[in-house]
């Protein structure tokens, strides 16, 4: 037990050190990533002014102009938890070029290793990105109507943590489809496209009309960006909040099991050649 904990700790420490090498570039990059939000602020201001002039009110599906900007900023936090750059692509590449063998012959669990690696990445990211995030949120504080109450904030934190787990297990499962498909780039592109649109990264998904609004509630993507932000803004309350959290938890468990099953079946199917 102790030996195993020591192994995990070493993996985490090495990954942390590796991630801290380019911290300056990292901080600057994070700040630059907020630039598009400037355009969004002006775009939505114009959209709302267009609505007002036509007498259609000042709100879109219950979101005021300030709510929408606050929503955008909050989805950036959701995405900071749930996005897993190059996780699925990396797994698929390891399968294709045979590097995956290292997990099969060493006494290390691949998913556990990748999880710790990702955790280290995220911890460093939050440490370095905290200052740019704090700066932008301070500058944009006028768009928020204050902190949510204690229980709402706890629910928000739970939603965020689960979005990290969901993002990890979902992408890992997708990447491991590479055991059968070898080349998963096109599949990942489709996933990225759907994710961008249906996770709520571009707009609050309450805006989706009719059948699209129904479909988006049946798939897990909303928990990657929309749900935590909506919880923070108090758009999901009461029983809907509990149902939302339970559904998110169920999706996490589902993909946790799915990733294990896919890994088990995939390694049975896998043939590694060469040195």
């Amino acid at each position, binding site marked *: 037990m102790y030996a195993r904990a020591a192994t995990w700790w070493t993996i985490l420490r090495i990954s942390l050190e590796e991630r801290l090498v380019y911290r300056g570039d990292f901080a600057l990059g994070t700040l*630059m990533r907020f630039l598009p939000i400037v355009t969004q602020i*002006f*775009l939505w*201001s114009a*959209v709302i002014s*267009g609505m007002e002039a036509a007498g*259609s009110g000042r709100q879109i599906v219950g979101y005021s102009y300030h709510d929408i900007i606050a929503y955008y900023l909050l989805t950036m936090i959701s995405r900071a938890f749930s996005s897993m750059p190059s996780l699925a692509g990396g797994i698929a590449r390891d399968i294709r070029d045979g590097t995956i063998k290292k997990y099969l012959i060493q006494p290390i669990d691949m998913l556990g290793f990748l999880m710790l690696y990702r955790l280290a990445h995220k911890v460093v990211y939050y440490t370095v990105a905290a200052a740019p995030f704090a700066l932008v949120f301070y500058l944009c504080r006028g768009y928020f109507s204050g902190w949510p109450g204690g229980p709402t904030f706890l629910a928000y934190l739970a939603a965020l943590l689960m979005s990290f787990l969901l993002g990890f297990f979902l992408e890992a499962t997708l990447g491991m489809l590479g055991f059968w498909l070898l080349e998963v780039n096109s599949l990942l592109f489709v996933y990225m496209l759907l994710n961008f649109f249906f996770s709520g990264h*571009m707009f609050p998904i309450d*805006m989706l009309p009719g059948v699209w609004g129904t479909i988006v509630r049946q798939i897990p993507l909303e928990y990657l960006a929309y749900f935590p932000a909506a919880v923070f803004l108090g758009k999901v309350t009461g029983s809907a909040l509990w149902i939302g959290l339970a559904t998110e938890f169920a999706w996490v468990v589902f993909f946790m099991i799915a990733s294990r099953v896919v890994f088990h079946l995939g390694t049975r199917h896998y043939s590694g050649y060469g040195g």
Partner: protein
Amino acid sequence: MANYFHVFLTFARNSLIRDMTFRANFVIDLISSTSWMAINLAFYTLIFRYTPAIGAGTGWAKYQFFLFLATGLFINSLVQALFMTNADELSELVRTGTLDFALLKPIDTQFLVSLTRIDWSALGNFVLGLGLMGYSMYQLHYLPGLVQIVLYPLYVLCGIAIYYSLMIALAATSVWLGRNQTLFDFWFYITNFSRYPMEIYRGPWGTPLRQVFTFCLPVLVVVNVPAQVLVRPVNPQLPADWFLPGFALFATVASLLGSRWVFQRALRSYRSASS
């Protein structure tokens, strides 16, 4: 001049042969770039379910705005097809010292490094732009007059020239900096401002922003001027209406001359590399 055109045609032909060698890859590239745009179109269609116009009194209603988008598609797809790959490659030429070979050829170096490789798959969005333009004009029952038919292509070319100048000037700085990844991020974030009609930038923050991106770094005139020429025909009676189109011509010449100067200066600082 005729020789240069002949060389350009050879580049175009070679690139097409190269693209057609990897046909599946070409098709995937084509689908990827057009589906990104389709997702954006879906987003704007959604916005227009809630508002009749982007900004009160700006005249950018749904189909007018779609004409703006089509203009952006023309300009961006041509810049991507002609220059993006080459500008991206320039830092690699500098880093590896391969730029020596370009310098030795009896042809203008800027011409050579700017147009060697043409990315035909980027033209998918040009076709999408044509479709969008035709559809929007049909919906508006609008047929452009002689002024528009002459001026629109001219200002689209001006837009391409301004974008090209910015891109090649940024790429040329890799001679001093050694790499240009962050600079390309910079290009992406700056051109992001030109994705929407300039009228959305107003108020105490928006007005200075609009002026900076119109007069100092003229990215706002790139799509706005041709789109305005098409959608809101300039009224020759009012001299003020001619100001922006007139300025766009000046900005184009100034950008081209400026980027030429930066490029020449960069070449003078080039010290080759490797053996």
